[in-house]
């Protein structure tokens, strides 16, 4: 990484705002570049200056508890007597020294008297609103790693997985189901020209054979019953060829099978139509399987 691109990254890294790949890249660069290491040092010095002049702003109650004079004097006397007795009591041999006793012995007695027996640590005098949270990474105490940290590798792997799942989702669902089950023939490839010009027809299954739709009565119950179509009046003349075909048909012939055809566009299927077997376009593979019973 070039030094002229590092400016804002160095600033963010000194503030502890970079992690993962970005933080690792900056750490590796700073460990190998003297100019950027000096820049990091100057940024830290500036941070120290800024936090040192952090103005004391205390709009509300004082942070130190102040007692009234009379109570202060009584409290001081009581505390002094109590501490003296407590500290000077003989300690049983082998008993550990308590924290309070250690503090009382370590702290100067006049300070305790002045504060009315309340030990105020030096930290209580510090600026109560000094909230500069700089979290610099220890670059000079540890050598820079030559490989990315473990979290970096995991993050990259996760990103690739997400991308693959998204690519799979682009395929239309019906085509994917038909391809997976291999119920009939093959699904025609969706070429770029046919996606726009002509929808793809996929023959799914014979309705007369027990299919998945017929095994779900609750789904069929939602389909409204078809209105009964009135038979054509006798006066309507039938085409001669059709009449000849009907009359030549033997009576014991099995009822015709009805096939469902899904018309699929690249994004969704638009319609389901019931057609006669003769009227349907069948691929070469389908013609070969015409005599075979359909696979369940």
């Amino acid at each position: 990484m070039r030094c002229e691109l590092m400016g804002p990254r160095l600033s963010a890294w000194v503030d502890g705002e970079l992690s993962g790949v970005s933080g690792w890249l900056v750490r590796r660069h700073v460990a190998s570049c003297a100019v950027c290491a000096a820049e990091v040092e100057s940024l830290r010095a500036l941070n120290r200056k800024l936090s040192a002049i952090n103005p004391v702003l205390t709009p509300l109650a004082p942070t130190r508890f102040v007692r009234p004079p009379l109570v202060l004097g009584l409290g001081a006397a009581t505390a002094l007597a109590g501490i003296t007795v407590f500290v000077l009591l003989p300690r049983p041999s082998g008993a550990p020294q308590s924290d309070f006793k250690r503090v009382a012995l370590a702290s100067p007695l006049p300070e305790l008297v002045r504060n009315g027996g309340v030990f105020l640590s030096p930290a209580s005098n510090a600026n109560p609103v000094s909230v500069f949270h700089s979290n610099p990474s220890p670059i000079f105490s540890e050598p820079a790693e030559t490989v990315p940290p473990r979290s970096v590798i995991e993050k990259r792997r996760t990103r690739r997985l997400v991308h693959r799942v998204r690519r799979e989702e682009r395929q239309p669902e019906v085509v994917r189901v038909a391809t997976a089950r291999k119920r009939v023939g093959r699904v025609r490839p969706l070429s770029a020209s046919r996606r726009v010009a002509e929808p793809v027809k996929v023959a799914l299954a014979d309705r007369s054979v027990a299919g998945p739709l017929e095994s779900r009565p609750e789904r069929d119950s939602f389909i409204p019953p078809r209105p009964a179509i009135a038979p054509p009046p006798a006066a309507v003349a039938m085409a001669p060829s059709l009449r000849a075909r009907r009359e030549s048909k033997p009576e014991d012939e099995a009822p015709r099978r009805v096939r469902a055809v899904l018309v699929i566009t690249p994004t969704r299927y638009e319609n389901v139509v019931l057609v006669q077997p003769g009227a349907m376009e069948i691929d070469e593979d389908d013609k070969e399987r015409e005599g075979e019973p359909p696979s369940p």
Partner: protein
Amino acid sequence: MVQHLEQTQLTDRKRIAFERLWEAERERVWRLCARLSSSPDVADDLAQEVSIRAWQAWGGFKGLASPRTWLHRIAVNVVLRWRERQKPTTMLDETLAASHEGSPERQALQSDEKGRIHAALETLPEDLRTSLVLHAWEGMAYREIAALLEIPVGTVTSRIWAARQRLKKELADAL
């Protein structure tokens, strides 16, 4: 009648929620006003204005951000508007100060490091100064500042970096 009662209860609940929010955030808002305006004297007035504006807008708060961020955003807006109003006065002060460049008070102020840093901070543009102060003195993370100022995190990063560069240059020139 029932609707009126429900509305009254809703108003009461809103008022109680706002009072709790204000009690929790009052000190931080005051400090934010004091730091962004660089004068604790006017921070009381600014915090008061923030509370009034926040209460007026509390009914329209949709909860898209956290209430704290929303309140601080109002505080930042109030302080920026106040600084806009103060600009002509500040410019006059600066010209007066520039005419008394070599005065003993000025030299004494410049000799103090704290005064030099404050003076250098005052020379920064408003956007750079706000981002740097929010981070360095209020302890906000970059993400919080981005939510507060409604800018991307990358912009916060570059602003803080630019503010530091200019601050370093100003301090080097002052020495």
